[in-house]
């Protein structure tokens, strides 16, 4: 079993990490708008936390693809 895991190229780590980040981005966009803006003083676009989460996770994807 250990040989099996050890035989997986490190490249797959990047693949799993990238898919993980993309999965979290998709998950955030499935949260209803009313839930995201719940209790917010207004509905200006900058208060849409899904946009910021996407931006954050794209930075992560870039970092994991570079390094």
């Amino acid at each position, binding site marked *: 079993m*250990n040989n099996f*895991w*050890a035989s997986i190229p*490190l490249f797959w*780590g*990047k693949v*799993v*990490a990238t898919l*993980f*980040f993309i999965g*979290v981005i998709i*998950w*955030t966009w499935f*949260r*209803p708008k009313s*839930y*995201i*803006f*719940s*209790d*917010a*003083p207004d509905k200006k676009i900058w*208060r849409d*936390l899904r946009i*910021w*989460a996407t931006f*954050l*996770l794209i*930075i*992560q994807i870039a*970092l*994991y693809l570079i*390094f």
Partner: protein
Amino acid sequence: MSGVHGIDLFIIISYLLAILFFGTIFRKYIRTTEDFFLAGKMLPWWVISMSIIGTNIGAYDYIGAAGGAFRFGIAQANYEWIGAIPAMVVSAFLFVPYYWRAGVYTVPEYLGKRYNIYVRLIEAILWGIFLVCLLGIFFWASGLMLNTYLGWPINVGILVTAVVVGIYTVTGGLTAVALTDVVQLVVMFVGGIAVAILGFWQVGGWSGLVSKITATHPDHFKLFLPLDNPVYPWLGMIFGLAFVLSPAWWCCNQSIIQRTLGARSEWDAKAGMLFAAFPKTLIPLLVVLPGFFALALAGGSSQIQNPDQALPWVIKNILPPGLAGLVFVAFIAALHSSVDSTLNSAATVWTKDIYQKFIKKDASDKHYLIVGRILTIAFVIWGVIFAPITNKFPGIYVAMQNLLSFFQGPTLATVLLGVAWRRATQWGGLAGLVGGVGISATLFALKVNFLYVAWWSFVGSLLINVIISLFTKPEPLDKLEGLVYGLVMKDKKIQNIIARRVNGDE
């Protein structure tokens, strides 16, 4: 380092006096337990964000992470990136809103509402003991730092930290803690950026840094390392760190979550956690780069015997007088922002989850405020007394970390099912928590890497919770109101109840 320059000493003493003055300003706003433990539910998102990161980054992180980068390279940054950012997003979108809506003071209190009093008690005792023991370790670290850099006797350093942090935490509660965290985070970044600029200048910029390091350490710019790496195997980084330990830390840790509970609105609570991920992304600039600079400039020599000496070496050899003092103040700020948060959270757990729940139930709010303050003072005194003991028994820190790691996976599984699955019952939650800890202890005894212990204890706890829940009586809907995700999203009646509760109409 004890031959400190006059200007450095001036900067350090000025910082200590300024933070003490700034922290005590907020004492006049503290009238209730909500003011003391939750900052009167007045915190805006940007204070929460900065306070979360100030709390998260301690002096141990500076020294340990720089040492980790010196030894293993950029893989150390996994703890700040994949080991934090996705979990912070999930915490902001899933966990934080439900803690905030439940109107609780602590995570164990939420678990008590969602499951039962036994789950609350187990979690409260765990966090209560862990936070209090952590104080002794933090106090010792502060004494050691002041001794190393200023030459002050260790006991004097401990007392200075205890007096400065103790006074503003006792008087100003979470408000003082959160707002001083903001100042401390700014100081930390200014110091970190100063190190980065001077370090890059000395090594010849980014390309100079990369060429110097990769000449001798070709894997130092790889985030994922092979499975035979003893500390950072890539599979453990993903399954243990990213999937379990990190969500457990960012979604269930009382000292982190408490800031969001003090938010002025649910949106501020969510945004506070989410926007904290931006400075978190930059933390490797502060904690990883110094390790690289030390390796590039002194790696081939015998000047650095122990990787943990990497950062002190950088401060001593790269920074001019004045800047060295500033960076040292950044160290102190990192330590203080962790000590004050731990102190306030420990007082909150012991007052709300243990004293108010099990010792004196129906006292006035003023009584609990006094108890909270007395406990804060008691924990400061305890920390000062306990600090030298942690040095005599270095295994205490490791033991505390192991104890917490036993609970990380099971706690995450319990909270996750509590928030996300209405069918999870009180007995499922209790069995999952206890069973998961049993799995952790067994795997630990078999000397399994702690990253894998976290993963399998999480999976085991999740399965036990699901199985026992399916065989036990479902919880009544009125008990779950406002506590479970799917229920609130689908049920208009419950949405209305929560809206009234948040508006203070009931």
